[in-house]
């Protein structure tokens, strides 16, 4: 039978505030264990949470970027369950009145734009981290992560395939990156994705029994886990079986999902309003302040790059993939570089060098203005493209301007006609064979002769001029 997959995503994003969501501790949890802690995030008797306004700011920004309605009045709730990594044995979260709700995000799938509904985005606190196997048979708890702010973003069950889920995650990460609210590093746990997956006969509008897939550590892992789970459920249904509602983990090594907890074992979280906190009231002014501070978002920027700079879909897509790259590109253009040339340099040589150096373009030591100057040197004929490619790594390494490097190394292009003419004559004399070939109509022979001139000048000769001079020389003598 043919099935349609119905998938909804729950993504937990760690928000990069300086201090934790309910106390003043630093959010850096790579510090030595239990150093960024206080009575509040340790859940000591008598300690009380106070909501970090920076978290509300960031959450409202995400909500607006995801086209959500921002609740004028929302509250925090206690989610009760026992686990050693929970300082208070309840997590402060938002239950029935999330800060953001009813939004959408656009993804591109098979050349089409699809809108995925965002059910809600709510604030909560992260748990501590259990560390097993310290000492002989001991476990420890590192509370540095306890109270780090999380935003949980929940979609409608609008996704239909692993590809769509992947596109959603990429689009979401891109927006969060543009907002600068999270580094979205799945490996480091700053973005955690859970998928609710069910199948139904193609064309049906009834939902099937869902499973929830957790503990996946990468976007590609999510993709594979969903592909696996869809096939697994299809197999069960094909054999006339029933899917068991359960939470399933992903075993990346074996490439399978496995049952962790069935519905019967599900927690009763006994949510109730957190009496230690006051309601979160985001008025018109607050929302407007955040709205005005929002950067241009990726899809808008993508459209503008195509229209204003005449870039192809492909180039506009790559250049707007991160805010840092788009900014770099626009700064290069603003410094005078031609948009298409700037695009080619950035996407090509520069990106390759950055990848090699394991640098993000946001940390690029080469200033956009210097890249623009380099392009200008090529345009003016001061250096050839080849020389530019040669000096780019050094520009990146030293942060030096192209002009300075060219001068320092004497790499300026030789465009002196007399000098080039003399060189050309020497080459023709030294290689009578190819010269004769050209004269006989073998145009390819010219390339060899140009190459010889270039070689004699260690690449500094203006290739255009060398070409013209040689043609003139060889045809004159006819």
């Amino acid at each position: 039978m043919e099935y349609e997959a119905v998938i909804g995503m729950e993504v937990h994003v760690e928000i990069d505030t300086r201090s934790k969501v309910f106390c003043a501790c630093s959010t850096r949890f790579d510090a030595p264990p239990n150093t960024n802690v206080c009575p509040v995030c340790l859940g000591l008797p008598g300690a009380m949470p106070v909501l970090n306004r920076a978290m509300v700011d960031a959450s409202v920004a995400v909500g607006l970027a995801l086209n959500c309605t921002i609740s004028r009045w929302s509250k925090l709730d206690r989610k009760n369950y026992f686990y050693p990594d929970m300082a208070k044995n309840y997590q402060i979260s938002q239950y029935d009145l999330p800060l953001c709700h009813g939004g959408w995000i656009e993804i591109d799938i098979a050349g089409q734009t699809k809108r995925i509904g965002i059910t809600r985005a709510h604030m909560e606190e992260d748990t501590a981290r259990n560390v097993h196997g310290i000492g002989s048979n001991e476990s420890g708890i590192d509370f540095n992560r306890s109270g780090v702010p999380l935003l949980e973003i929940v979609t409608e069950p609008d996704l239909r395939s692993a590809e769509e889920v992947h596109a959603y995650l990429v689009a979401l990460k891109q927006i969060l990156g543009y907002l600068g609210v999270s580094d979205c590093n799945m490996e480091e746990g700053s973005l955690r994705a859970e998928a609710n997956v069910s199948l139904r006969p193609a064309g049906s509008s009834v939902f099937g029994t869902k499973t929830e897939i957790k503990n996946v550590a990468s976007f590609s892992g999510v993709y594979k886990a969903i592909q696996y789970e869809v096939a697994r459920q299809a197999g069960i249904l094909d054999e006339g079986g029933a899917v068991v509602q359960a939470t399933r983990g992903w075993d990346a090594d074996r490439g399978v999902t496995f049952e962790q907890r069935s519905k019967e074992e599900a927690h009763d979280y006994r949510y109730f309003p957190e009496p230690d906190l006051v309601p979160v009231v985001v008025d018109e002014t607050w929302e407007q302040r955040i709205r005005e501070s929002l950067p241009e978002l990726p899809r808008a920027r993508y459209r503008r790059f195509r229209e204003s700079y005449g870039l192809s879909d492909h180039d506009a897509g790559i250049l707007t993939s991160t805010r840092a790259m788009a900014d770099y590109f626009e700064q290069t253009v603003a410094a005078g570089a031609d948009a298409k040339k700037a695009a080619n340099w950035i996407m090509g040589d520069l990106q390759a060098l950055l990848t090699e150096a394991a640098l993000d373009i946001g940390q690029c030591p080469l200033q956009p203005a210097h890249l623009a100057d380099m392009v200008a040197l090529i345009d003016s004929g001061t250096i050839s493209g080849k020389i530019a490619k040669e000096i780019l790594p050094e520009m990146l390494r030293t942060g030096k301007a192209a002009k300075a490097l060219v001068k320092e190394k004497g790499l300026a292009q030789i465009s002196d006609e007399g000098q080039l003419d003399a060189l050309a004559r020497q080459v023709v004399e030294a290689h009578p064979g190819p010269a004769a070939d050209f004269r006989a109509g073998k145009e390819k022979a010219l390339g060899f002769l140009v190459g010889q001139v270039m070689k004699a000048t260690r690449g500094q000769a203006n290739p255009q001029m060398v070409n013209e001079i040689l043609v003139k020389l060889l045809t004159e003598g006819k």
Partner: protein
Amino acid sequence: MEKQYCRLTAHEIRDALRAGDVTAEAVARSYLDRIARVDDRVRAYVDVWRDYALERAGKIDARLAKGEDPGALAGIPIALKDVLCTTVGRTECCSKILKGYRSPYDATAVRTMREAGAVFLGKTNMDEFAMGSSTENSTVQMTRNPWNLACVPGGSSGGAAAAVAADEAAIAIGSDTGGSVRQPAALCGCLGLKPTYGRVSRYGLVAFASSLDQIGPFTKDVEDMALIMNVLFGKDPMDATSADLEVPDFTRCLDAGVSGLTVGLPKEYFTEALNAEMRSKVEGAVAVLEKLGAKAIEVSLPHTPYAIAVYYIICTAEASANLARFDGVRYGYRASNVADVKDMYHRTKSEGFGPEVQRRIMLGTYVLSSGYYDAYYLKAQKVRALIRRDFEAAFERCDVILTPTSPTPAFKFGEKTADPLEMYLSDIYTISVNLAGIPGLSIPCGLTARGLPVGLQILAKPFAEETLLRAAYAYEHSRGFDMGRPPLD
């Protein structure tokens, strides 16, 4: 024989210190001697900080000698309920599960009092985690009522109330979730205040029911109450629920009188259930205020009959979450020889919590459970709003409401422990006040024929503590009798 400074009020001690008639150390010694003399009978304290108190007092004296201003509470000996986190001594909430626990920080209230020069004498006994009305739920000891050692001091802040009543502290600080300051104050014959919710920072008060808890002081007179309120009240950035309101100088609004004040008497509180002797004492107090120019009217608080049910749903629900952290993982008691984490949770809690605490955790867990939440917790919240509205409506017609603080005077040990519901009724006149978030003050209004104190409860609108004090001060200065002292000497 050394002068009995322990008989002085806090403001008398303050004046004597500033006049140079006495040293803080002499005052502290007087209190410590008093504790040494009577506390083996009263058993108000679970921990006496003798060395600490003398050292603190010495520092205050040094500052006074240098002509510095050592603060509004300079040299005043104050006792702290064991529910307040203190870096000195232990913070155990009189529970086995927190045995030996030392707080790495001071409660905001403790810190502000210390900064104002207070000399802390130690920690006082309480019902375990402030759950109870007789202090019999303490796992440490039974505190006795200084007026009759066969009777309970009330609870849950029974140790704090008894300490002030027995002159073992000038002021004591308790906490009031459903009457835990006012009821023991009434039973022990001292003053007790439950401030408006949000007036005093709860940071560092070990939480029982967060939406109801307030720190409240016990004093020997109204002027002392004003003195301590000036220090305790105010916004704390560490407590999101603390009110960002300016704090008046309460000592300056005491003698405004009650002329023109309207006093409301809720008809639902003056029923057959009220002990006749208690009723006549409260009516006597009303008559005093009327004589001073106040007008008494009957008001109605129609949702009163639901208050106890609502209270025991909300407070247990919140307690079930607040006490979840006591699990043996990070601090406090941990059961030994456990099989696994789950077993550790089960046994730690079963062995570490007393029966009343366990009963409330289970009740609270139940009312929040899926399928029961709407019928219990949500319904209770709705009725709580109605109770709050009852008071709003009543306060449209009057400035203060007068009620008995407790339906009975102090009762005998064991008298109500067999039936938890009977014990819960001890707070019938006080719990609505916590549900409504309004301020309430209990002030002695006489002794029964058997010599037990009776408390008058005065209530006012949210943040109208000035009005409370005004009425209490007028009454105190015109009531025409001296409460005398408990027969301990």
